[in-house]
């Protein structure tokens, strides 16, 4: 029997190419999504997308193979050899027996009603129910008023600087600002002791105090999930299927206006619209547990810890 073993290259190249592309779709995309998000679970990719990619690749290869006579011949050569029994009787019978079984298995798996989890494409920052009145809100803790500065100077003079109850911690911690080793504070206090008050320094010192207080509130209330450095990696984070937001990632709090962040803190997970899967969100409704001014103070520190600034609200002409 004359064997035609030359010219079988097309078959192997095609098989290898299809194999590589399918492996890329099946394992490459999930791996890449895990690598990008740093999460254990791959981003959901719809099954139909996989299906269409596969069809496109198969169709593309078919078009290529049938493009001219020589490729067809080259592609079919190894298959023909098998059918002609060029590789021996045993091999012929094994292939002839295995192929229908494999085909039957795949058809069965395809036809039988499989239960497949539906894919959730979640919208992280929904705006469908974001109340417009929050859009232009500004953090009132950023710009101390004259009255607040006066009050602060007086409190600093009397060693009776006020802190939020959680930070004050039943008097165990702070009644003044002497523990803050930051330039504006030490300069302000030095001048105060020598009998002069510098309002500019007082304002800066007050901001240091607010930042410190905001950091304390953040560490008490937000740290368990969002992490000590804002990385969304707090000690409680592992247990939630929706991972707490990493504030240091671009595309989170730096792309949002302050009013939006404030609204999310105030109303938590339950206020999200269905497209943002509120049932999976562990974000508490903080209006139950923190006052409005405490929440703004936390936000001051939150942006500082993450090292980002909020987006400026757009000025829309009415």
């Amino acid at each position, binding site marked *: 029997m*004359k064997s035609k073993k030359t010219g079988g290259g097309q078959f192997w190249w095609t098989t290898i190419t299809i194999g590589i592309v399918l492996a890329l779709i099946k394992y490459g995309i999930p791996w890449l999504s895990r690598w990008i998000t740093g999460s*254990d*679970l791959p981003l959901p990719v719809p099954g139909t997308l996989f299906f269409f990619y596969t069809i496109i690749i198969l169709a593309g290869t078919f078009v290529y193979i049938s493009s001219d006579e020589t490729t067809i011949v080259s592609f079919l050569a190894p298959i023909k050899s098998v*059918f*002609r*029994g060029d590789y021996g009787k045993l091999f012929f019978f094994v292939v*002839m027996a295995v192929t*229908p*079984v494999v*085909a*039957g*298995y795949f*058809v*069965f798996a395809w*036809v*039988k*009603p499989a*239960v497949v*989890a*539906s894919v959730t494409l979640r919208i992280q920052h929904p705006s469908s129910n974001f109340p417009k009145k929050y859009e232009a809100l500004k953090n009132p803790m950023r710009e101390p008023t004259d009255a607040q500065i006066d009050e602060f100077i007086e409190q600093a003079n009397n060693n009776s600087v006020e802190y939020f109850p*959680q*930070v*004050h911690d039943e008097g*165990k*911690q*702070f009644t003044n600002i002497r*523990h803050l*080793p*930051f330039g504006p504070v030490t300069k302000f206090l030095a001048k105060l002791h020598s009998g002069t008050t510098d309002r500019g320094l007082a304002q800066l010192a007050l901001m240091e105090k607010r930042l*410190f207080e905001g*950091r*304390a509130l953040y*560490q*008490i209330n937000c*740290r*368990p999930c969002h*992490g*000590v*450095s804002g*990385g969304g*990696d*707090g*000690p*409680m984070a*592992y*247990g*939630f*299927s929706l991972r707490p937001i990493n504030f*240091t990632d671009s595309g989170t709090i730096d792309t949002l206006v302050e009013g939006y962040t404030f609204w999310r803190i105030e109303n938590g997970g*339950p206020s999200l619209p269905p497209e943002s*899967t509120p*049932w*999976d969100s*562990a*974000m*508490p409704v903080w209006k*139950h*547990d923190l006052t409005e001014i405490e929440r703004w103070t936390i936000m001051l520190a939150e942006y500082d810890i*993450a*090292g980002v600034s909020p987006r400026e609200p757009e000025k829309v002409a009415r």
Partner: protein
Amino acid sequence: MRIFIASILVLVITSVMAVAGNTKHVKTEELLELGKKIYIRNCSFCHGINGGGDGPVAKFLNPRPRNFRSNVFKFRTTTSGSLPTDEDLFKTISRGIPGTAMQSFDSATNRRGLTENQRWAVIYHIQTMSDDPDYNLWVFDDEYAASDDPDDRADYRYNKVVDIKSPPPSTRETITKGKEVYKKAQCHTCHGVAGRGNGPSASKLKDEWKLPILPRDLTKGWRYKGGNEVADIFTRFTTGMNGTPMPSYSSSIGEEDRFALAHYVKSLQESVTKKRVLTALRVSEKLPTDPADLLWSGVEGIDIRLTGNVITKPRWQNITIDLVRIKAVFTDDEIAFRLEWNDRFQNREDTMALQFPVKQSAGEEKPHFLNGDENHPVNLWIWRADKDLVAELNATGYKNPFITQQVESQNVTGDASFIDGVWSVVMKRSLVTDDRNDTQFNTGGFIPLALNGWDGANGDTGTMKSISSWYLLRLEKPAPLKAFGIAALAVLLVIALEVYLTRRWRRDVTIQDRA
């Protein structure tokens, strides 16, 4: 040649950088000043302004934050009772303490963490906080070296006892030998025979401040505070953990045996699946309520991770039930679940609840994973150790109390066992009931499933509990006859095609041969 020189240069530069990464930064006044600022901004909220371990976050945490004034440090490479080296402190700050609130502060793992320089700065500041002037290490290294006082020169940094180059490889023999050492050194009196931290003395342990302290559950690799690698484990035996009942074995067990022990302890760590879908196995026999029934061993389950309830007050970060292994089986009429979790101490208040939505929507919509919400009630099957029975409850949100169903609606049965630090609970019900407050198990779909757990000995109660997100339960429908038919048809078609092609191509060859 140029490429050769360039690659040599790259090699030299990278190795210099690697060495530089491990050497500590020179202690200067400026660094101390910087360290103080960093400490106040990043550490003081837990460890306290003056290092007393008493910041405003401290009262929520167990274990409590370290008190830097007491000179007691757990994670060292130095002899028992002495201070850690600067490098030991650097390591702790850089990688954090797993299973606690102390996170990694390494800017390589956390974008807003601390740079190396900042970490050294804060270490030098922490060392100035000691109450005991002898331990007050703000003195610069060169002053120490030049000191007239021999005590100063016999300083803590010369008490290093562990210097691991590379641990010997793990083999079957080392692990077997390690197991013998574990027995001989009586590790089991605290850590338990199977290593679940449930030895006979476990409940009586106190730390240096007379506070109760628990021996590590060695099966949970993610909770090894000093790291779960062989070298870390070896270091803990060798140096002991100051302030805790964990002693140093450097003089009582030889180095080779300590390495064997470390390999054995490492082998106790159990792996955890990351699957989010629990597939119930369809069986034909009657479902058992006995957790030890042989049926369960043939069923593949999943691991559910639980975390603390930090969603509603009173919040709770100090959970012990952080993993439940769950399996499910079903028949045409019934479904049964087996839940297993490690618990050091059997307690009357131990409780576990399985949660399902009352109504399953066609889309993605679910009740909130923490006990549902006003519009989406959940159905809870709750097992309590004191009553040793399973009750059916409903809940409509984490702000609302659970409602126990009427006696006539109670139709979940169950059984539990507690063996060597493992609770094993089976809960069973019919697939479908006529109670509209019950979840109904229809095959061919996904049913959300979540857990709530309370460890009585840990003081869990009310909302102070372990909680999980939604996982999914899958009940496969049996394949219909039609599917078998179509598959058979496909097989026949392929065979026909094979016969046709074989005949045709073989004929071609004969024609060619004739020609």
